[in-house]
Structures are given as structure tokens and as C-alpha cells.
């Protein structure tokens, strides 16, 4: 007989979400539903009627971990709708800003997953905040990498959490020669640290992968070799930055996309029939509690070619670099591999930046209501914003954010794993739940959303 266990709220990621798991007698997940329970702030709806200048600033505040991706995707969607080409140096600044955010985000994610992992050769699970070595050195390195990322972002974009100097039509300011040098020095320092950090994390992840079992809240749990495997396919729009409907050859196709309500995908009302008080910390949901993912989920289910897909670092590596490792460990290792990559690319962009170049377009149209979209590769995956701007007012705004894609994909990846490791699989997606809490057009007749948009 299957039993139902619920882990709520899930921890060590952004936002509020929960896992509802139907498990067999051995505790192996038969069906897993991972869903957002973050209140829906309704950013896509409140955007309507506002100016295209303000909406990207609000979009940024949808998520404080990948705000840059939201801000840039929204800004560039506006530019795509009004058909505004921005100067090359503004593009360079945006690239630098975006890569800086990726650097900080990868480092932050290291802090979040380390408690699931072991110091190689020991049974000691890693507390990233302990003052003891070797962990303290690693924690300091992580924080320095984050500092480098945030400082570079601050220089290129005015501020690093929510960027201030991006604007429709380009950037408010270019950087001075002095600022360029500073970014350069920081990136070079970061490269050395990132290499060391990447090697460390990969070693720790490989060590985890080689284990027969792991301990969760005192319970010994067998570690399957296929932890986190799924067959949902991948979506990425660029190895680094993104794409937009202004591009000559866009890498995302709105016609291949549609979104449905969770009603079709999640389980209906059930009762919790398995409770585990040992599950850290505070135990799982009490026996007899009614759960209803269908009703409670705060996101929709986006699909590309009719199926949920995975987005994120592995999707980028698979799409652009023939990376081929499946599972949770493969996903985390892909993220680590983006460390150095993002710094090499950052250095190239800083090199290409001309501090004397102009950074605002000469002419910024008011918009005629055309559909425009832009994607930005957030640290945790493809972030697509779609908009229509007419007479300098936003008529329609929609955000298709990374973790929304990953909710359904990750739910599929839970199948076959011991339920105690569901959170480990989920964390592999580096979820950002606040931003995922959005849904595009309701799709009752299973009609293509894109058709509705284009009509």
C-alpha cells in the first residue's frame, strides 16, 4: 500500500515550497509533487498599465537571488516590444552584470547544499558555518567569491541585489576606466578562487556519489545510483546570456511553448499517512493532515513541445557543450563547472567594454503594442519575459521563470528515490520559488498560449 508523506516547508532554498510524496512500503517515491506555496504577489497583473521603465524594476524584486535575470529579461522584453536596439557597450555592461550575478549565485548555492554532503573520507556532514577547518577556509572562499561577484555587479549595474543602472534603451551610465580596471582585477582574483572552489565541490560531490548510503535524521538511507534521474529533456537559450525576439535567429520559440494549470499535473486531495518525527528538523507533516497539491500549488506547469523540461546549468551544458551526466550529482557538478566559465566570459566582456562608448540608444520608441519577448539565462535556468508595450504603457506582461519550468521536471525526477532524499534532489535545481510563483495565460482549451498572445 502506498503512503503519503509531506515535507513542508522545504528548506535551504529561496521561497516557500513543499513536497508531497506518495511512497511504497520501502519508502521509495512512486509519485512526487513539488509545489510552491508562496503567496502570489501578482507581478504580471500589477504590471499592466505601468510604464515599461518601472516594470523591469518591479520584476527585479520578484526574486532577490536572480534579480538580475528578471530585470534584464523584463528590460529586454520591453525593448523587443518597442523595437529598440541598444548600443554595444550597454550590452557589454549587461553581460558583465549578469555573469557577476551567476558567480555569486553559484557560490550561495554551495552554502545551501553543503549540509547534505560529507567531508570526503569521513562520516562528518558539512556545516558551512562551523569555525572548524577545513570548512572555514571553504566558507571564507565562498564568501569572497560572492563578494567579487556582487562588487563587479555593483560596478556594472549600479547595485548588485536589485540593479539600479539598467534602463529601457540601454544603461544609465557607462563605467570609468578606473572602474573597468577594478572589475578586471576582481575577475582575475575570482578565477583563481573559483577554480579551487570548483575542484573542492566536485570532489565532495563525487565522494557523495560513491557512497552506498547516507544518514538523514539518524535514519540510514540507501543511496540509489540513479538519484534524480529523469527523461524530460532540456531547454537553454544560450550558454551564457540569452536571446530575444529582436534577434536574427532567436533560440527560443514561443510557438513551442504552452502552460497549463497544476490541476492536470498534480495529485488531488489526500491524507498524510506517514509521519516521521526524526526528519530534520521538526519532522514531517502530522498524520491525518489533508493535503491537496492541485489546489495549493501556486504555479502553473509550463511545457516545451508538450512536456516539462529541465532548465539551468546542466541544460546549458547539455545544449551547448554536449555535457551528458544525469541525476542530481551531475546537475550539481554542471553548476560547479559554470564557475570558471562565467569568469572567463566576464573577463572577455570587460575587455570588450569601451568606457567612452555611449550606453543609451539615440531613439527610444513608445511602442505600438507588438509582442516582444526576451530570455535571460538566470543561474538556475531560462527566464523568459513576454510583453506588449503601447504608447509607453505596458499592456501585457508575463514571466516564465526558471523554477516554474523545473517544478514539474523535478517532480518527475523524484520517482524512484527514497523519500528522505527528496529535498536533496530538489536542491539540485537551486530553486527560487518566489519568482516561480507566476503563471502565464490560463489554457483551458489546451490552446497554444502563443496563439492567444499573437492574436
Amino acid at each position: 500500500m502506498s503512503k503519503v508523506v509531506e515535507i513542508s516547508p522545504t528548506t535551504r532554498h529561496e521561497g516557500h515550497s513543499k513536497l508531497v510524496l506518495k511512497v511504497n512500503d520501502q519508502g521509495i517515491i512512486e509519485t512526487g509533487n513539488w509545489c510552491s506555496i508562496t503567496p502570489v504577489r501578482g507581478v504580471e497583473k500589477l504590471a499592466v498599465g505601468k510604464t515599461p521603465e518601472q516594470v523591469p524594476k518591479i520584476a527585479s524584486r520578484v526574486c532577490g537571488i536572480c534579480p538580475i535575470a528578471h530585470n534584464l529579461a523584463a528590460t529586454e522584453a520591453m525593448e523587443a516590444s518597442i523595437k529598440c536596439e541598444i548600443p554595444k557597450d550597454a550590452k557589454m555592461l549587461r553581460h558583465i552584470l549578469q555573469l557577476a550575478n551567476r558567480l555569486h549565485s553559484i557560490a550561495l548555492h554551495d552554502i545551501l547544499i553543503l549540509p547534505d554532503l560529507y567531508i570526503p573520507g569521513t562520516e562528518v556532514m558539512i556545516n558551512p558555518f562551523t569555525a572548524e577547518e577545513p570548512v572555514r577556509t571553504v566558507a571564507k572562499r565562498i564568501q569572497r567569491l560572492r563578494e567579487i561577484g556582487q562588487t563587479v555587479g555593483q560596478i556594472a549595474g549600479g547595485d548588485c541585489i536589485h540593479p539600479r543602472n539598467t534602463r529601457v534603451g540601454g544603461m544609465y551610465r557607462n563605467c570609468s576606466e578606473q572602474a573597468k580596471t577594478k572589475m578586471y582585477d576582481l575577475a582575475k582574483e575570482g578565477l583563481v578562487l573559483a577554480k579551487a572552489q570548483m575542484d573542492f565541490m566536485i570532489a565532495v560531490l563525487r565522494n557523495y556519489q560513491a557512497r552506498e548510503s547516507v544518514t538523514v535524521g539518524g535514519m540510514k538511507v540507501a543511496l540509489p545510483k540513479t538519484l534524480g534521474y529523469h527523461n524530460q529533456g532540456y531547454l537553454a537559450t544560450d550558454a551564457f546570456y540569452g536571446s530575444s525576439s529582436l534577434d536574427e535567429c532567436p533560440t527560443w520559440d514561443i510557438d513551442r511553448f504552452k502552460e497549463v494549470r497544476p490541476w492536470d499535473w498534480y495529485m488531488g486531495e489526500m491524507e498524510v499517512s506517514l509521519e516521521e518525527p526524526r526528519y530534520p528538523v521538526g519532522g514531517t507533516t502530522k498524520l491525518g493532515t489533508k493535503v491537496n497539491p492541485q489546489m495549493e500549488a501556486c504555479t502553473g506547469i509550463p511545457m516545451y513541445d508538450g512536456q516539462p523540461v529541465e532548465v539551468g546549468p546542466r541544460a546549458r551544458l547539455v545544449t551547448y557543450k554536449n555535457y551528458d551526466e544525469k541525476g542530481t550529482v551531475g546537475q550539481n557538478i554542471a553548476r560547479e563547472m559554470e564557475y570558471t566559465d562565467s569568469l572567463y566570459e566576464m573577463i572577455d566582456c570587460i575587455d570588450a567594454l569601451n568606457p567612452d562608448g555611449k550606453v543609451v540608444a539615440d531613439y527610444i520608441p513608445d511602442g505600438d503594442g507588438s509582442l516582444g519577448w526576451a530570455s535571460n539565462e538566470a543561474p538556475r535556468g531560462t527566464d523568459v519575459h513576454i510583453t506588449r508595450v503601447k504608447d509607453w504603457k505596458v499592456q501585457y506582461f508575463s514571466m516564465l521563470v526558471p523554477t516554474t519550468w523545473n517544478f514539474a521536471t523535478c517532480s518527475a525526477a523524484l520517482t524512484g528515490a527514497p523519500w528522505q532524499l527528496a529535498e536533496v534532489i530538489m536542491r539540485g535545481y537551486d530553486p527560487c520559488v518566489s519568482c516561480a510563483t507566476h503563471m502565464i495565460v490560463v489554457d483551458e482549451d489546451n490552446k497554444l498560449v502563443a496563439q492567444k498572445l499573437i492574436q
Partner: protein
Amino acid sequence: MADKITLGYTHLSGCTGCTVALADNYAGLLTLLDRYVDLKYMPTLADVRHVQKVDVSFVEGSCCINDKLAVEELKETREKSTVVVALGGCACYGNITRFSRGGQQNQPQHEAYLPIGDIIKVDVYIPGCAPTPQMIRNVAVMAYLLLKGTKEQKELATAFLKPLMMAAQRGTTACFCELMTEVINQGLCMGCGSCASACPVNAITHEYGKPQGERDLCIKCGACYNQCPRSWFSFDVVENYEAINEAIMAALQ
């Protein structure tokens, strides 16, 4: 030094930018955790899943009053904390959630968002979007001194925190409009430029020496109003800026 203070972190309808700001104390965060602060509850960073009894709670985000869970969590936070700090523009003033008006799938009824001060009593404000790592650090160190310090340290901490407590008492509205109504309209603005530099969306410029706010850009975070030296200013604290800065830096050495 005495033992650490316990800290909780309740995350409501915010974006986690405030959490990132806390983490952006970089090595200083590790020092804070080593010496002054025992992190009891913060689901974003650690595994404890339910609100705990603590000395100080940071609350990030505004509260959706149409979401039972959020309201319960907020009330529970108040009941279980000696000091509640509203962290960031959303918790203090609503910030972008002031614009929310519901109607979005999959929970179209999530319509009404309030700054936490409209639902519970809040002791200390840290406004700004995002709030700054240094401001969070200063409040954390001062909260420690207030609860665990010597008599002199308690006095210093009280003086330092007083304006932020008064900000919490003042109310749950602050944006560029308050800069107009409470400073410029009151004949207090002298054109220093603080507001423009504080604005996180470049909505403020200065025309002929006085602030010009682009109200269609303003996100209602309250940074400009609270950074203004003519919104509130404590001579007792600011005249000792050197000693206080040194004390904070020394605490983190």
C-alpha cells in the same frame, strides 16, 4: 562576553533580497555567527522548519492577508520573539507589494498585502530595497549589545536603535511622497542629495538643488525618506560617529 543572542528569520512575501543582503556581510557574517548571533530559525539557510522562540526575529516581506499560513506565521513570530525587526522595504512599507491587486493564477485571491506593522507590533525598522548589509550588521551588533552588553553598551545600543524604533512607530507608509510631505513641504529640505543616492531605482534627481521624484518609477521602499538627514537625525548618535563606527568594526575583527 556573554553568550550569543538567538535570531529567527521569518520569510513572508519578500524576494529573499534581504537574505542576500544579510549574507553579503561576507566574512563578517561568519564572525557574527561565531560570536554574537545564534541562528535558530531561518529556512533559507538552515533546516529548522518552524518558527522558534528567539530574542530577535527579522521578518522579510509583507504579509498576504489572504494567505492563512502567512498570517499565522507572522503572529507566531511576534509571540515567540522579544524583538521583532521589520527587514526591508516590503516588511516596513509594503514596497512593490503595495501595487499588488490580485487576479493572478494560480491563486487569484491573493490580493491584499500589508506591511507587517499593520498586523503586529514591530519594534525596529530596517528599510530599503534591498536593505544594506552594513545596516543589518549594525542592528545585529546593537541588538547584541542591548541584550547582552554592559550598562554603557546598553545605553549606546538604545541610543542607536531609538530612531529605528521611532521609524517603526511612525507608520507603514514611506516613499518619495513622504519626502515631499514630511520634509520638503515642512520646509526642511536643504538639498544635500542623500535621497537621490539612496534611491534604488534612480527615481530621484535634483533640479535646481531640490529633489525631483519620478513617481512612476518609485517602488515605495522608503529608503529616500529614511536616509534623509531631515527625516530624522540624532545628534547623540551621529556626533559620536567615529567611536560607534570603531566599536562596530572592532566587534567584527
